């Protein structure tokens, strides 16, 4: 950026249906056809693609789980070979943790962040598109081996030396290593985008203590990802080097197998919080809408979100209590892991207090959110048990851990996400989901989930190890395993009801209007679905609950939603200062382009040819990627303007 021009003073206007909407529509609309579809940088379109893709992976991972439950429904069943079972449990974990749990939250955040913040897009719309395309490419990459029987087969945490070439010579583990490096690029650029969007794109007046808790959740998760993903991407790369070029980072003779575990869990434990904190934020923002009052303890919950993540970086060794660590280290990591309960308890008490001091409108979304509190507590206390090293020496690697992690990941990710679908589907589509079907959807999922995963605690206490493809009779596990399998299928039926509801309601749902729940935040101030430019004029925010102003004491009427800055000389949005959200820049947002798509294609081609060491193919992929970058960054005059940002005199 050179030679910033004179400060521009945009007009402040009142939006009407005729002005400035039609002009903005023409500026922001994505062109029809394949080129438009591949080239769109609209955060809403990208967000929905993330959500739909993540759900496709959720279904794939769910089917893998059901096949495993058929095998384990009784002792000594021979539906699956050991190798088939091993690939299934590995791909189930990789799918759910890497390809569903994080991307689905990225999808919601992508769709919602600019709307929640009063912006017209994310800070880097093209990076956003790149993040999605690489995610899709990495998902297909990871599944390419599986569909031909060469999928990763060493579990989602892929311990060495079993993952080393000596013990696992096929392409299976190389697909895991390279596929997850590719996915790490997507996660990293997406996280950077969220952080910058938070710092610079909040509407004027939306100081940091006025953002919804979900913003805090995704922000915290994004900062964590920026710090944690490099550790594991490095580990994946070193593993690939060990396997393909004979380096010795992780082998037992000259390297250190435990180095892998440290690098993995340095990433892995923060990641667990990264895939639940945004979902906890959804509950913190959604419950108040249905309790008809603001969240109890906003500041405490926001700080607890950040504190959870900070502590989350100091507990990774509790995944490694059995590797032979000194008692002092075990004590330290036990203590740290227990402390992390405190910020979680803050959130639980805040939600419960919000219910007890509100007037509860029991909707499907509310049922999913409120049930999450219970599942979170259950997954939390089992986590406290595993935090205690001497107890963990018995619990670890049994079905107790399987139960614990599913209460955490399904309880704190899937249940809020399904609640969020009921909550925001009207915004996405302009129609409401059926509440009758939703009621059935909730109860079948809730009963099925608990039937499936509650008995797993018992199986763990009865000593059933994880990751066994079969077990003999007489171990005391038969009846519980049958119940677990039945519960698993019931849970799947509940998820199927959700999909039926979505498909039916897309056509026949009741029209929603802009704000069907009478919710307080900015996304409900725009039409459903929102126009491509989100806001006709840039809103000014005067409280945490702009749409409840004048109706509750903590939100006196100060926000201005229909009257604001007119930014219509191109794709423009306003940049604001980091803490107080004082407007200081007019940001020129980029046009649609297929460059991110081709960059992702180039990288995927390069990674694909790296598997068989086809270096010419790798070079070709990198050339495609390089050309895409040249197109991406080719300097151009945007509608007569020399620079991407100009000072504002507001």
């Amino acid at each position, binding site marked *: 950026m050179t030679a910033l021009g004179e400060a521009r003073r945009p007009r402040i206007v009142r939006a009407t249906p005729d002005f400035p909407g039609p002009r903005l529509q023409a500026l922001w609309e994505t062109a029809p056809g394949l080129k438009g579809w591949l080239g769109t940088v609209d955060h809403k379109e990208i967000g929905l693609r993330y959500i739909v893709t993540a759900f496709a992976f959720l279904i794939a991972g769910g089917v893998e789980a059901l096949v495993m439950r058929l095998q384990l429904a009784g002792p000594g069943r021979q539906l699956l070979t*050991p190798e088939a079972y091993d690939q299934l449990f590995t791909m189930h974990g990789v799918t759910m943790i890497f390809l569903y749990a994080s991307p689905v939250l990225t999808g919601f955040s992508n769709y919602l962040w600019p709307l929640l913040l009063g912006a017209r897009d994310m800070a880097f719309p093209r990076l956003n598109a790149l993040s999605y395309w690489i995610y899709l490419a990495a998902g297909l990459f990871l599944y390419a081996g599986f569909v031909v029987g060469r999928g990763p087969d060493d579990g989602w945490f892929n311990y060495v030396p079993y993952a080393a070439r000596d013990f696992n010579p096929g392409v299976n583990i190389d697909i895991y290593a390279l596929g997850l490096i590719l996915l790490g690029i997507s996660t990293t650029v997406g996280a950077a985008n969220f952080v910058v969007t938070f710092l610079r794109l909040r509407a004027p007046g939306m100081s940091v203590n006025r953002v919804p808790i979900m913003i805090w959740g995704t922000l915290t998760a994004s900062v964590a990802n920026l710090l944690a993903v490099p550790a594991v991407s490095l580990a994946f790369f070193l593993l690939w080097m060990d396997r393909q070029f004979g380096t010795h980072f992780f082998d037992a003779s000259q390297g250190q197998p435990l180095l892998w575990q440290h690098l993995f869990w340095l990433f892995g434990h923060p990641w667990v919080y990264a895939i639940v904190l945004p979902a906890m934020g959804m509950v913190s923002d959604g419950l108040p809408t249905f309790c008809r009052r603001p969240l109890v303890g906003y500041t405490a919950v926001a700080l607890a979100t950040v504190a959870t993540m900070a502590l989350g970086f100091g507990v990774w060794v509790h995944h490694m209590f059995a590797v032979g660590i000194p008692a002092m280290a075990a004590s330290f990591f*036990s203590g740290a892991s227990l402390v992390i309960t405190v910020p979680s308890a*803050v959130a639980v008490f805040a939600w419960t207090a919000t219910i007890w001091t509100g007037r509860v*409108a029991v909707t499907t979304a509310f049922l999913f959110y*409120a049930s999450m509190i*219970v599942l979170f507590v259950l997954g939390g206390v089992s986590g406290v048990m595993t935090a205690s090293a001497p107890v963990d020496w018995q619990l670890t690697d049994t079905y107790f851990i399987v139960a614990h992690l599913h209460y955490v990941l399904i309880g704190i990710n899937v249940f809020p996400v399904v609640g969020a679908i009921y909550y925001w589907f009207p915004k996405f589509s302009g129609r409401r989901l059926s509440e009758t079907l939703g009621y059935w959807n909730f109860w079948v999922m809730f009963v099925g989930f608990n039937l499936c995963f509650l008995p797993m605690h018992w199986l763990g206490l009865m000593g059933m190890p994880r990751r066994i493809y079969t077990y003999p009779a007489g171990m*005391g596990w038969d009846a519980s395993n049958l119940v677990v399998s039945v519960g698993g299928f019931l849970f799947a039926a509940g998820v199927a009801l959700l999909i039926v509801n979505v498909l039916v309601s897309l056509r026949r749902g009741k029209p929603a209007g802009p704000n069907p729940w009478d919710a307080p935040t900015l996304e409900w101030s725009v039409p459903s679905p929102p126009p491509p430019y989100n806001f006709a004029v840039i809103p000014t925010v005067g409280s945490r609950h702009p749409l409840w102003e004048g109706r509750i004491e903590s939100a006196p009427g100060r926000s201005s939603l229909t009257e604001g800055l007119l930014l219509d000389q191109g794709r423009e949005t306003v940049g604001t200062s980091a803490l107080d959200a004082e407007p200081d820049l007019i940001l020129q947002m980029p046009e649609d382009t297929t460059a991110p798509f081709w960059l992702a294609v180039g990288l995927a081609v390069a990674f694909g040819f790296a598997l068989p060491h086809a270096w010419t193919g790798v070079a070709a992929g990198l050339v495609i990627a390089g050309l895409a970058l040249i197109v991406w960054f080719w300097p151009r005059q945007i509608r007569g303007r020399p620079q991407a940002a100009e000072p504002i005199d507001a």
Partner: protein
Amino acid sequence: MTGAPAPLGYLQTAGPHADPATALTWGLLIISVVVVVIMTALVAAGVVVRRAPRGADAALREGPNAHGWFYIGLPLTCITLVVSAIWTFQVLAAVNSPAGQPALTIQVVGHQWWWEVRYEGKAPGEGFVTANEIHIPAGRPVLVEVTGADVIHSFWIPALAGKTDTIPGRMNLTWLQADHPGLYRGQCTEYCGAQHAHMAVYAIADAPAAFEAWRQAQLAPAPAPVAPQAIAGAQVFQAHCSACHAVRGTEAAGIVGPDLTHLMSRQTLAAGALPNGEASLAGWVSNPQAIKPEAKMPATNLSGPELNAVVAYLETLK
């Protein structure tokens, strides 16, 4: 193999290295159940009590700030956590400082997919190697040095101690001590490949005199076969099996698979996959892959008479 309803359960344990953690497990389990019941009741009651009547207007209310929930809930949470932490530290100290010198030190080596058990004697010639079954004298502390031969496994006999990973290139220590004679089942609990599911191990606590008798029997080399079929079997064994398996007192000295010197003194085959006996032996030797797919032992392709002979020989290894 035991009468216990859940041989790998650990809510009841049988030795001083496990018992303190068991009490803590029960304690935390009870606290957990109480917390879940209270919070579930609070959430459910809140929804019922505060539910807006159907058709009522959903008027907004600021509501009280309700910070009392934090002032009551968080101290209770912290007190519970501090108690849990102190109890945890006490148990850690207890299980890490065993009473007195070990009566015996043994080595356990995890292999894909079986357990090598080495008893070092006080003098050369007093040591021996066995597999998958660990005899210990009841009531005496036994120090176990564990390591891995190939990939990481985890050594776990829940009634006697928590898990200790067997990591190649590293030696970890754990203790086994059983209050009473008995059979205690264990299993590998770190995923280690195709046959992770069939990697059982047994600790057999004997009365001290019985343990000593077992030890003396194990020290003896294998008896020479007498019956003609067994003698023929010994030749088949040398030709087909000795590259991987050792039988002390013969030329068979392979170290890839389990030492078979006193095979028939063991209760199971193939790390708990089969009960030991003539039929199991024949089935296992002829086609291990049918019982443990991808096990390291290949199908032997013996003729019928050869198979019968080698089984007859193996049955002499008492």
